[in-house]
């Protein structure tokens, strides 16, 4: 990467095919003269001592009509009527150091104008001629109004293009032949071929104005080598194509061809002029017109500069991508009748690879360079594949989104940076609007690595907390649990001893011993089951989802609490709905909720000395198909002031309570996509209800 930073070549790192011939021109343009003359009302031209134009200010464009682009690096003799004398004139000038007079020069429209010029030789420190500077204005004797052109109107500064059409010679020849044919469909066919020609034409160079008007945020570097069609307004592509054919097939070498183009939202009433360059297979195009915007051009430039600066300094990483050719491929695939693009991509994985290697990044901002650890923008201006090295599926999703005509697509994915870091990013893609002039897709990447790791830590913390609460609950239930396990153990001991007594008799009763042994086994299993449940509650584990039956969960929860209820002489009524659908959930966590709610009620009922001691629990299927658990007790109920806070963490009315039980119940139910509510029953006592949606085990809701 580092070696590329200083290179001026606009060639992109991964594209050896980009024509390199544009590089010297580009360098020449960069080395142009002081900006002070850009705003002069007089024509200011700087020649090197060989007579080649080195600088051509906007006033020269206005005066002569030739864009700077077409003049830089060339002599001016071909514009002069007395070109045979030019060489002699130049020799005299270099000798004498100055010259003043009237010259006649040709404009692109073919007419000649008389110009008063003053030429001065500038010398280097060692006394040798360095360059020649020429000032010029239209000769007053020709009837020009003095001072009328002191401000260079915007419309005179042509948006100039140098275009290479050498690869399209056969097409141009074919079009020229077709022009002579007559037919109803001929014009439509011709227009299609003109457009085709503009698509094949490549940009060799453009001037600043062209970059400003149609280059978007890309800059000249990225326009060079690209198809002209990518930047030329759609409505006038055929016009340009027609002019190219005119210029390339015209008899006269210096002839110019011009046409009015439709206003295109960029320029008002633009006039395009096309002529051949000296280099075979290339043409110049100059577009004149007023910016089609009520704001002044300066204002527009300032606002665009501000916009560019804003985008560049946005803290979010942005990529501008040109996927226009993929759009055409999608159109073709759609035309084949394909509707399920995901399935199509499964059969044609090479299409994803094609996108990865051919869809180019055309612009990026500073945050993008920082995120990927690049040295310069060029490091990132490559095919998009590098954004999807870790997760190719994300690229596939982006493609499917566009195929399906979505406005955008977003997902959290992973990327690997140039310096090897692995980042979690939230990627958002905005697709180009259909029929938009420029096919531009915008990617934004937000680094969420830290947030995700924080979320993971939070999840762990919550799991730890939930576990701690379960352990604490089990602690409260030790008496109950001990009793639950002791019962089958007591039965086992007695049955075993009774068996021994049968066996030690003179006539051992084998049948009796068999029956007792079977009971021992059954009681052993019962004890083991209880131990399993407790182990589940006590285990430290990550939440896991499996198919669960809410009724089963309620019944298992009762194992933990039954003895507590019985010993407090609390009557418990269960009313479980039949044939409840199974759902996906965490069995242990839901048990924890039911046990917590039950303990709460037992303690509430226990606290009051008089009155009924009763807890009713039940399960239902709600009208909209969700699972509900309800509990009602005959305790003192919830204080109205507390109802809103009862599920808050560390809220408790108990002296020894931590106040985490109900908060954890709420977070567990929320994790299951449900809700939990607390209220007071009109006839007294508290009631709790939680509802969780049914998520069928096959994944559908």
């Amino acid at each position, binding site marked *: 990467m580092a070696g590329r930073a200083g290179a001026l070549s606009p060639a992109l790192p991964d594209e050896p095919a980009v024509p390199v011939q544009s590089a010297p021109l580009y360098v020449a343009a960069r080395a142009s003269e002081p900006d002070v003359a850009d705003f002069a009302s007089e024509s200011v031209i700087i020649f090197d001592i060989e007579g080649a134009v080195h600088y051509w200010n906007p006033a020269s464009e206005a005066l002569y009509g030739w864009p700077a682009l077409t003049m830089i690096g060339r002599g001016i003799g071909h514009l002069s009527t007395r070109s045979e004398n030019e060489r002699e004139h130049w020799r005299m000038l270099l000798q004498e150091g100055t010259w003043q007079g009237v010259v006649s020069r040709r404009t692109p429209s073919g007419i000649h104008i008389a110009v008063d010029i003053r030429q001065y030789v500038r010398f280097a420190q060692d006394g040798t001629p360095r360059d020649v500077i020429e000032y010029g204005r239209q000769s007053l004797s020709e009837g020009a109004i003095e001072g009328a052109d002191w401000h260079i109107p915007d419309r005179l500064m042509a948006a100039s293009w140098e275009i290479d059409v050498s690869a399209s010679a056969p097409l141009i020849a074919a079009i020229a032949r077709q022009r002579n044919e007559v037919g109803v469909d001929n014009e439509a066919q011709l227009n299609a071929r003109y457009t085709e020609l503009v698509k094949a034409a490549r940009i060799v160079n453009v001037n600043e104005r062209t970059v400003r008007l149609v280059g978007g945020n890309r800059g000249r570097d990225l326009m060079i080598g690209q198809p002209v069609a990518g930047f030329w307004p759609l409505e006038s592509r055929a016009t340009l194509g027609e002019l190219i054919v005119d210029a390339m097939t015209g008899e006269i070498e210096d002839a110019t061809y011009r046409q009015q183009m439709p206003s295109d939202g960029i320029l008002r009433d633009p006039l395009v002029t096309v002529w051949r360059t000296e280099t075979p297979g290339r043409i110049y195009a100059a577009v004149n017109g007023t910016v089609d915007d009520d704001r002044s051009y300066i204002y527009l430039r300032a606002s665009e500069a501000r916009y560019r600066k804003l985008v560049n300094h946005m803290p979010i990483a942005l990529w501008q991508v040109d996927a226009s050719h993929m759009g055409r491929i999608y159109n073709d695939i759609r035309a084949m009748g394909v509707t399920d693009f995901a399935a199509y991509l499964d059969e044609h994985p090479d299409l994803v690879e094609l996108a990865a290697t051919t869809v180019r990044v055309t612009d990026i901002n500073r945050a993008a360079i920082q995120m990927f650890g690049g040295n310069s923008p060029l490091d990132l201006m490559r095919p998009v594949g590098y954004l999807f090295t870790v997760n190719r599926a994300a690229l596939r999703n982006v493609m499917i989104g566009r195929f399906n005509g979505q406005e955008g697509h977003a997902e959290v994915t992973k990327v690997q940076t140039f310096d090897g870091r692995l980042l979690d990013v939230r990627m958002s893609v905005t697709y180009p609007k259909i029929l938009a002039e420029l096919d531009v897709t915008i990617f934004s990447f937000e680094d969420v690595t830290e947030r995700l790791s924080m979320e993971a830590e939070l999840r762990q913390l919550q799991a730890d907390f939930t576990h701690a609460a379960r352990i604490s609950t089990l602690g409260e239930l030790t008496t109950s649990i001990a009793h639950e396990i002791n019962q*089958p153990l007591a*039965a086992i001991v*007695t049955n075993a*001893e009774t068996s021994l007594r049968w066996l030690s008799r003179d006539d051992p009763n084998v049948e009796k011993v068999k029956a007792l042994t079977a*009971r021992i086994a059954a009681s052993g299993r019962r004890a083991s089951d209880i131990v399993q449940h407790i182990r589940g509650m006590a285990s430290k584990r990550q939440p896991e989802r499996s198919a669960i039956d809410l009724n089963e969960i309620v019944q298992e929860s009762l194992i933990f609490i039954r003895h507590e209820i019985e010993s407090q002489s609390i009557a418990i009524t269960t009313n479980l709905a039949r044939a409840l659908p199974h759902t996906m959930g965490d069995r242990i966590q839901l048990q924890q909720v039911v046990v917590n709610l039950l303990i709460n009620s037992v303690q509430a009922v226990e606290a009051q000395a008089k009155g009924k001691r009763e807890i009713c629990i039940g399960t239902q299927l709600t009208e909209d198909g969700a699972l509900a658990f309800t509990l009602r007790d005959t305790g003192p109920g919830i204080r109205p002031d507390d109802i809103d806070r009862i599920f808050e963490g560390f809220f408790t009315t108990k002296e020894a309570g931590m106040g985490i039980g109900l908060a954890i119940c709420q977070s567990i139910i929320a994790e299951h996509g449900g809700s939990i509510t607390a209220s007071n029953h009109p006839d007294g006592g508290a009631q709790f209800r939680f509802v969780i949606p049914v998520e069928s085990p096959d994944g559908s809701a």
Partner: protein
Amino acid sequence: MPKTPLVAVVDDDEAIREALCDLMMVTGLGCSTFDSAPAFLNDNAPKDFDCLITDVRMPGMSGLDLLERMRARGSDLPVIVLTSVLDSSARAKAFELGAQAWLTKPVADDALLDQLKAAIGAEDWPGEPGH
């Protein structure tokens, strides 16, 4: 022939009831089981029990409540409390109400049978069957 002594067992846990009943049987004692205290109190055909074995924690009515009711009715039936409860105040209450013994589950058969023998009396205790 002396009559077979009859023992009542009150426990909400079926496995415990069956186990105790079988132990009585192998010892040569008669046995009736009840799954709750009210079931014992409301027995329509009150038998001439020689001893009662009861759990403490049971739904509806506890073993201690049962003992209290029996004493209130004037019954002096020997009562053996067999429980997992380790609560000393409950134990004291049981002895206050004239319980014969307080045994914790799991109980050793000899310990239980010794207490039953004391309650029923050696003269009524069945001989060693099959020996």
